[in-house]
């Protein structure tokens, strides 16, 4: 039942269409997608130093693995296979450092606090909410490579192709570190569960160990060799190793970029599908 359809006494008057005009200082149509991405990325990057607990464990694990692997296998591999095992292991440390670290936990916090809804009520591009966060991941993982590389330098590993080789090395690492968390974001958008996102790191284990983590591919047995052949991490490691020990080798770098592309299409595709489901208003 309705008692009164009209405004009650005390209600502000001046009822006309102009009252619903948009603030003239707003320039939402001037906002480009790139600008939206940068705004979201900047916010995520600003969070990084404020969450050291989300970053430091990801640095300790690769350092630990490098130390253990080199300590236990260096003499054996260098005498039996005649390879520079420190240079062989440094990319493993890098891949361990950059894979799986993401702003996924932060995204879940946004979803659960309602902040993501607040973002959805702004004119920002929905796609920028994902891509901006992934852009922040690129910066994060590029930074994560530096301490591990410093460790490599300390133990005597150098870059065969100088500064450009160094930049390509960091670039490949960061690209890989950017696309892999797409799986994490898909889980985050789908479940909004901190536990599910935390357990997403399990996804990395088959990628990390069913490959040339400990020995070159030609030393793997038939089954593991077959799995390593379809494991994209194999190609990332090969490319990074080639940048440390060889002249420019496009037959190593090319497949790595292709592997990043394939994983990126899959992971970002899943993340976009989950994002679409999250913002569909259904």
């Amino acid at each position, binding site marked *: 039942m309705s*008692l009164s359809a009209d405004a009650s006494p005390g209600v502000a008057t001046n009822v006309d269409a102009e009252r619903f005009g948009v603030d003239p200082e707003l320039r939402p149509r001037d906002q480009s997608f790139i600008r939206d991405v940068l705004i979201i990325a900047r916010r995520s990057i600003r*969070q990084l130093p404020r969450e050291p607990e989300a970053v430091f464990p990801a640095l300790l694990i690769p350092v630990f693995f490098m130390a253990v692997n080199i300590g236990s296998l260096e003499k054996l591999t260098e005498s039996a296979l005649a390879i520079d095992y420190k240079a062989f292991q440094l990319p493993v440390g890098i891949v361990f450092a950059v894979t799986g670290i993401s702003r996924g936990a932060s995204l879940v916090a946004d979803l659960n606090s*309602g902040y993501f809804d607040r973002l959805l009520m702004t004119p920002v591009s929905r796609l920028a909410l994902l891509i901006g966060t992934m852009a922040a991941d690129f910066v994060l993982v590029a930074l994560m490579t530096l301490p591990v590389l410093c460790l490599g330098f300390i133990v005597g590993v150098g870059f065969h192709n100088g500064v450009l080789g160094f930049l390509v090395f960091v670039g490949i690492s960061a690209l890989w570190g950017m696309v892999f968390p797409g799986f994490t974001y898909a889980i985050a958008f789908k479940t909004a569960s901190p536990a599910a996102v935390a357990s997403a790191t399990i996804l990395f284990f088959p990628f990390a160990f069913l490959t040339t983590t400990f020995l070159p591919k030609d030393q793997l047995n038939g089954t593991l060799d077959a799995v390593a052949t379809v494991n994209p991490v194999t190609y990332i490691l090969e490319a990074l190793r080639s940048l440390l020990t060889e002249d420019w080798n496009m037959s190593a770098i090319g497949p790595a970029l292709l592997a990043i592309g394939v994983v990126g299409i899959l992971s970002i595709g899943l993340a976009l599908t989950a994002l679409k489901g999250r913002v569909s208003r259904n």
Partner: protein
Amino acid sequence: MTIPAILAENLGRTFGDKVAIKNVNLKIPSGEVYGLLGPNGAGKSTIVRILCTLLMPTQGRARVAGYDVATDPMAVRLRIGAALQSTAIDGLQTGREMLALQAQLYGISSGVAQKRIAELEALVDLGKDFDKRVSTYSGGMKRRLDIAIAMLHRPPMLFLDEPTTGLDPRSRQQMWDEVRRLNKELGVTILLTTQYLEEADSLAHRIGIINDGGVVSEGSPRELKRLVRDDIVVANVQGDAVAVESRLADIRGVKSLTVTGDRIEARVSDGAQAIGSVAIGIQQAGLTLNDITLRTPTLDDVFMELTGAHMNKEVGHEPVR
């Protein structure tokens, strides 16, 4: 042309088999503070989320500021601000950073944003904490910041979903003052949901009472209270009132009776005439009368009249003085 700030026609929303809201009709003129009053789970937040373009209706249609929420959500978003039920903040940012980010998202230039943030700094009243991380703020500080963020782009319409839930009385009073200021000084149309009777009574020009997903009545607080034509006699007693409830119901002039522990509420048509009879009847039933008062109907009585049940008990909700 006069267009309502909010117009909902037969609005409905289901989640699978569950009906969240059904056949909701709202017509809220510009400049009004409209309160949606109802218990938890009544459907208040679902209505707000549809009107804020976060959720699609499965039935009917809604227009906000003249724009359809389903087909023109961006036009709606540019004209609304919202502070939803959970305080939508990022604990890792400072209050200032959150406002600055909001300005960027709306394409407000840096100079204008700085000016507005300076203005809103006084509103949020955070002092030095304005530059501290939001995770260190109290509930009241977060809520004030939440509303400041919602108002940064100066929307003509504001949605507040249970804005004072969990706040202490002082923070609640501050929130009420701010809601009144936004409406009176800036002419902002405000739709607020609440489960607090006092809040709806104090703030809203009109109230829609919502229960089980539908608006069961609508009007100004005074109009709604007129639905309950009776007076209420409230008595606090010692003794087992429940055991003698049927005897109490027979007291002359009593139309209905509610006994809750040692509290008796009797609805009577003429309070001044009946209060004496009720007092005598209570004593004759063997109860000791501690005190007895006569009051006019509240919104809770209206809710009871309309739905046959009281609103949820307002646990922990201390009165604002």
